[in-house]
Each structure stands twice: as C-alpha cells, then as structure tokens.
C-alpha cells in the first residue's frame, strides 16, 4: 500500500465524491436564491426563504414538536438501552439468540412494514396521533442503536477496574456510578446521538402515526416536498444538513477529547 494510486482511481473517486456531495451543495446554493423557482443557477441571492420558513407557524410548530419527541425518545431509549446493553454483555441467561433477535429486529425490518403494523395497533390502543405514541414508536426504533453503541464500549471495558473499586470500599451501586458509567460514557453518548437522529429524521412511521395536532418536521416536509415549488424546502434542507454536520463534528471532537484522557 505504499505506491501512489493511479490516475484512473483518482478520477473515479473524485467523480464518486462529487456524486455524493453535489446534490446537497446545489440545494444549499438554491436556498439562497432570490427567485421563487428552482432555477439553477439562481438569479440573485437572498435569505428570504429562511425568513419564510421561520415565519411560518406550521414549520416552527413542527420543529418544536419534533424536538419534544426527539428529546423524550433520547431519554427513554438511552435509559432502557444502556440497561439492556449491560444485561446483554454481562448477563447469563438462556436464549441468547432470542434476545439478540429482539434487539436487532427494529434495525432490520423494513420501515414501511413497521409503520403499517404500528398504525393498526396504535389506533386500537388510542395511541395513534398522540405525542406519546410517536415517542413509543421512535424509542423502540432507537433502543437497538443505543444497545449496539453501549455494548461496544462495555466490551472494551476492563473489569478489573470494577474489582478494584469494590476492593477499595465501593459497593456494587457506587462502583457502577463512580467507575463503570463514566468510562462507558462515550458509548452511551454515541448511542444517545444515534437515538436523537433516529427520531429526528424518522419519516415513514411518523407519517402513519401523525394527526393534525401532532406532526413532526419530517411529516410536514413529506407533504411539502410533493406540493411546494419554491425554495423554502431548500432552505430547510440546508439548515438540517448544517445541523447534521455540526452534530457529527461535535460528536467526533468529544470522542477525541475523551480518548486523550484514557
């Protein structure tokens, strides 16, 4: 692996890179267009579409609703998921395969199938169209991601540290909060981030579980994408992409800083 890659490879990779990024970049440019059509290149630059978004109560209400649901999901999923990861890695129990299947399923089943299934049952339970119905649905989708991340952290954890803590006078509970939890925090934080993104971006299940009073941002977007023709959506798309980049960079920085201490 010590020779320079040949020109063909470089060209191919550049093209693929463009393919990956171009659509998003173009949308970003469009979001600053002063015209009200999706003409490219835009005639002039302005931030009117950002203003239009912020002014629209429909959009801002949905952002608020999404935020409420996402935060609730993060709290619930991280709590349940961290406990489950501990049980999964350290527990001794029969039927490991069954448990693994339960945990992995939400990541593996097609979203439309989940949406349809949940819709039919939640209607009967009176949870369709409610915020807590959404939270329940998002949480069950997010828990597996939390488990995967926390379990990875746990597997790299040196059990001797817990033995040392006990030997030094910390009972099981104090050992967990003073030694184990701080050291698996990176995994827990990563899991929480995944849980947030899962809930924040969730479209299909949320559409089925939505009602006029309870609509998340992706649900409003879903309708708007098929009807709107002005660049408001472009502005929204750009803001969401920037949010993602910030979160991603933030997560990487936090992880690197955490590594330095070890």
């Amino acid at each position, binding site marked *: 692996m010590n020779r320079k890659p040949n020109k063909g490879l470089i060209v191919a990779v550049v093209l693929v890179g463009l393919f990956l990024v171009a659509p998003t970049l173009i949308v970003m440019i469009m979001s600053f267009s002063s015209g009200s059509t999706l003409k490219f290149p835009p005639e002039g630059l302005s931030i009117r579409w950002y203003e239009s978004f912020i002014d629209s109560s429909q959009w801002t209400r949905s952002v608020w609703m999404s935020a409420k649901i996402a935060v609730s999901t993060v709290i619930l999923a991280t709590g349940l998921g961290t406990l489950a990861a501990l049980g999964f890695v350290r527990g001794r129990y029969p039927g490991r395969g069954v448990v693994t299947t339960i945990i992995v399923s939400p990541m593996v089943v097609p979203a439309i199938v989940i949406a349809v299934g949940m819709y039919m049952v939640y209607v009967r339970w009176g949870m369709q169209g409610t915020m807590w119905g959404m939270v329940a649905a998002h949480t069950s989708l997010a828990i597996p991601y939390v488990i995967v991340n926390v379990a990875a952290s746990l597997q790299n954890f*040196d059990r*001797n*540290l817990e*033995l*040392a*803590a*006990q*030997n*030094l*006078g*910390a*009972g*099981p509970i*104090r*050992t967990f909060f*003073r*030694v184990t939890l*701080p*050291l698996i925090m990176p995994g827990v934080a990563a899991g929480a981030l995944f849980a947030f993104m899962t809930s924040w971006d969730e479209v299909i299940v949320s559409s089925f579980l939505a009602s006029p009073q309870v609509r998340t941002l992706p649900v409003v977007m879903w309708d708007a994408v098929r009807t709107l023709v002005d660049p408001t959506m472009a502005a929204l798309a750009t803001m969401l992409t920037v949010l993602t980049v910030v979160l991603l960079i933030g997560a990487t920085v936090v992880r690197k800083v955490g590594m*330095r*201490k*070890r």
Partner: protein
Amino acid sequence: MSTSTMTASSVCEQESAPVAQSGALSLSGLCKSYNNLRVVDDVSLELRPGEFVSLLGPSGSGKTTTLRIVAGFIKAEAGVVTLDGRDLTGVPPHKRDIGMVFQNYALFPHMTAAENIGFPLAMRRQPKAAIRERVEEMLRLVHLEGLGNRYPGQLSGGQQQRVALARALSFRPGVLLMDEPLGALDKKLREALQLEIMRISRQLNITVLYVTHDQAESLVLSDRIAIFNEGRIEQIGSGEDLYERPLSLFVADFVGESNILRGVIADNAEEQVRLASGASVRVSQRACRRVGLSGGARAAVVIRPERMAVRPAQGEDDGAASDSELAADLPGKLREVVYLGSERKYVVELAGGEVVTVRVQEGTAEPLTCSGVRVCWKANDCVVVADPTLADAGSASLSAVKPGGEATEGGE
C-alpha cells in the same frame, strides 16, 4: 548470591521495627474447582501480623485464585478466610478492608492519581481535608510528590505501579494483597520497585500476601514463601528453608538451580542411594527420614551447583578421594565451560549419562581445561527427596533458574 545479603540486612531491620498489632490473616482448607478441575486444593496458611509471604509457583498453580478468594472476588467451595479472628465468609469485597494491587494496576483512567488514591477514603466518607492530607502523605511515601494531578495515562509504568500501591494503602488496611504487580516492568525498574515495596511494607508494618512466578523476586521480598503446585501448597518456609532443605522434587527444582541425580535407596543401608550407573551416593539417614523414604524407594539426590566441586582427573587410575565427609566422588567428562564474569559454570556429563552443572567462583581455583574430571560434594551439602516421576532412574535432570535468571540448559 546477592540475595543472601538482602536477607541479612532485612533481618537487621526487622529487629528494630515495631510489632504489628493487626493483620493476622488465616486461610484454612480453601478449595475451588472449575469444570471439575481442582484449581485450589485444600490451601491453608497462617500469616503473622506484619509478615511478608509470597505465593510462588508456575502459571496456573492456583496462587492468583487463592488471592482472589482472600479478596472476596471468588467464592471458595470450602474453607475459611479469617482476618484478625473475623470470619470473612460471605463478606462482600467492599467490606473486607483489605488492600489489593492488581497485575495491570487497575487505576481509574478518568481520575487523577490523587483522586485514585483518595477514592477509598471517599468511599469511607472521610472529610475532604482529611482525604487531601492523607493523599499527600501517600504520595510522599511512594516518592510521587507533585504528580497527584496527573492522569494515569500521563504516568510511566513504574509511576502507575506506585500510585496503585499508594491507593491500596491509603485507607491503612491490615493486609495487602499483590498480584504479580511487577510483571510488566523491565528488570532495572523491577528491582528498584522491589526495594520500594520492601521498604514500605516494613515502614507500615503491614501483612503482605504477594503472588509471583519469579522465584528470585520472592526470595528478595519475603519472610516466608509458599510454593504452589497444581493447586496445593507443597512447602512453606523462608527462602533459606526452601533453598537448603526442599521437601520435594518440585520445590528443589523450582527454587534455584539444582542438580538432580535419580536413583533408588539401597535396601541394606538407608544411607546409600544407588544411581543408574551403579555408583553409590552417600546421604545422611536423617535426610532420608525427613522425607519418609525407606529402602527400595525411588529417590532423587539434589545438589546445588555451587556446592559441587570439580577437579581434573589424574589419569585412569585416579580413585575416589577418601575424604569421609564426601557423599560421592564421581568421574565424568567436561562438556562445556561458560564464563559468567563472577563465576565459571562447568557442564559435566557423568558416567551414568547424567548431566550436572558446577559453579565455581572466579579466582578460587585454576580454570579447568582437560576433559576428564571428577565431581564431588559433601554429604551435608545435598538433600534427598522422593522421586515421583516414572522415568527410568538413568535420566538425570538439570533445571535452571526460572524467568528472571539465565536460560535453561541441559536435558530435562
């Protein structure tokens, strides 16, 4: 050997140190099996307050498991651990008040050295000022003043080890357990830290139970050594006891270098051991009785290399020396000479095929060059032990110092 000077000086120190009041640890009949394999087999040991006892043995011999039973991490299937008369059965690890240093130190990476050392005090809800004071005291004790604010990742291996030690001692336990704490360090650092551990344990007068597979290390550090073999304690005694008077072939083999000549106790006179070559070796009857051997029993004669003497054979008709103190005077061929600076090592093959090593201090005799030699030793300088192996009596073995010393040589 330099260890004898160590022991002498520490004996002098011991006479001036105050007598410890607490820290009497007693293990009695401990047993533990995994998958039907007896890992700890009826282990019993009494430690006096302030005593430094090593658990020495090859890997897998049960010493670490025993240590962990004392710490409370493993439940023994049978047997009792008592500390100052208090039965520790059923007492969880965090209530045992026993200090422990782990093999890889187990320092909390998310806490500074000071926080690590203060951790047990925080667990015992000591006031912050008292904790700070004690932490400073411990840092001084292990010569790490000023480094309290560093994280373990920012400390060298030797420094981490000292933090681990300080942490285990900060709450003044009566007993300290150490699980091969110096294994990860290089030789010079190991030796320096051995001295530190000795100094600190004497200064604090704390009872220490120290697990190691390095017999040189255990000789340096311990008041007594318990030799572990396949889950059982084969022999307990001071370094000198084990070296000069091993009770079994395993102990003779494991501690120090030894020449082992296998044979059978003569039927008619218990003071003779007949080797495969037909030669007879004299042993004292007391030595035989000490290990319970009688006529006809398979035995091994153990002679330390530095107790053997070697001289050139004066031609074919050089008979055995008539010195009545000698146990034997055997002819052999000089196979190898190894120059080691302070001494010379001669590898000699005896008539019966046995290979022995003789160590001679430089300057005490003319170096040998001829191939025909005679090897002899005094009757008081050798030991008889039972020979449990089923190999034929003709095969001799030369065992060498285990890790920490020089390389193995000769056949086994």
